[in-house]
């Protein structure tokens, strides 16, 4: 069910995994929105006014009011448009697990990927594979394999949306910069999850193609 006159604008940056999360949430819920790509090297007045504290993307502007920080935005989207494709679980404890593993991913995996990129692939993290394995363990615990490949079973849930950008970023970093993530043998369910993400109709629109991300990554390497 598409929502029309909701006055929703997304200040985006296509390679940003945080921006991708919000785009994906909007598409999963069929929320019509205006997507305004931002030039991060020359920040717009709108961006600086909408996110004066962090001056970052993504920002969601709904009925003139800005919301920043991707996890907070996705929570907001889920609360304002609860009907279609609900993302946060109903159960309080399960909700806490989704938030915990989102936070784990950001502290441990996302942070390392960031350092890996900034160091031109030099940054080493002996814990990286271990962290992937812990995430695999979380999926085994929280996701019912019989229902489907996602943490949410057959459909994507909050944690799936938070992790989805890795489905394109990790292969891009692997192929361009030699990142060594966990293998399919080590993390079979995560591999299946990311495969399902790339096949998902909403994710196909929300996430850039791996080739495009590879070009982007390659270009940044050369310019250093």
């Amino acid at each position, binding site marked *: 069910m598409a929502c029309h006159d909701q006055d929703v604008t997304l200040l985006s940056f296509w390679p940003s995994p945080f921006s991708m999360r919000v785009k994906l949430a909007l598409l999963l819920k069929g929320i019509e929105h205006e997507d305004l790509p931002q030039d991060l090297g020359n920040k717009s007045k709108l961006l600086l006014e909408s996110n004066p504290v962090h001056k970052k993307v993504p920002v969601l502007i*709904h009925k003139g*009011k800005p919301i920043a920080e991707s996890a907070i935005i996705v929570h*907001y989207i889920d*609360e304002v448009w609860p009907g279609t494709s609900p993302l946060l679980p109903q159960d309080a404890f399960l*909700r806490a697990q989704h938030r*915990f593993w989102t936070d784990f991913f950001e502290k441990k995996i996302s942070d390392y990927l960031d350092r890996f990129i900034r160091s031109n692939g030099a940054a080493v993290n002996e814990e990286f594979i271990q962290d992937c394995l812990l995430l695999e363990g979380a999926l085994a615990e929280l996701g019912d394999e019989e229902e489907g490949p996602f943490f949410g079973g057959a459909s994507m849930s909050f944690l799936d949306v938070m992790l989805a950008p890795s489905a394109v970023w990790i292969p891009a970093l692997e192929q361009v910069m030699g990142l060594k993530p966990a293998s399919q043998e080590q993390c079979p369910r995560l591999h299946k999850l990311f495969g399902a993400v790339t096949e998902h109709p909403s994710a196909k629109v929300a996430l850039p193609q791996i080739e495009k991300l590879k070009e982007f990554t390659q270009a940044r390497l050369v310019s250093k």
Partner: protein
Amino acid sequence: MSKGSVKVLSFWSSMFGLRVHYALDLKGVSYEYQEENLFNKSKELLEANPIYAKIPVLIHNGKPICESLIIVDYIDSVWPNPHKLLPEDPYKKAVARFWADFGDKKVYDAGSRLIRATTEEERKKASEDLKWALMKIDEALGTIAPRKPFFGGDSMNFADVALAPFICWFKGYQKVGGFVLPGPEEWPNLHKWVTAVKSVEAIRKSTPSEDKVAEFAEVIRKRAIGSA
């Protein structure tokens, strides 16, 4: 009121631990408290938080929840009344979450770097960052809840609970990092907020003495210098 057994594993001076105490005490939830020795962590803590082995942990009916803001969110869901912490309005809720998150990203980070700084350059940068962060909070209070004491208006909300624990560390930041909090003429909203928070009985219940915290900050600093 009773919704099963509630146990908190924490450490007396931890700002993250204090958030959990504040949330439970504001709601009048009874709980068992276990003080952890961070140099000799209990088996219970290691089992409850195998990923990080950190406090605080909330154990509700035997099930552990970790990470302070996640715990406070959980507490607010299970015990919504009295004293609901997250506003019902989705936008106001997002604003409260934003400032709680800001506390972690900007205030805690700068304060932590301030205490552990080994060079004057590091100390100065951390001090400037901390000042900037607290200035933003002063501004936010003026914008979000003008003429009201708390982010939540007349009573503390999720953002207030997330940020309140820093108050008892200001003396430590001053003693160890030379950070001087600008006065009420410069930051009227922040000072009004500090006074209001300190007057809440539920907050006073578990807040440690600022002098004790300052001594502890000194200990952390010595260890940081020692290992540099």
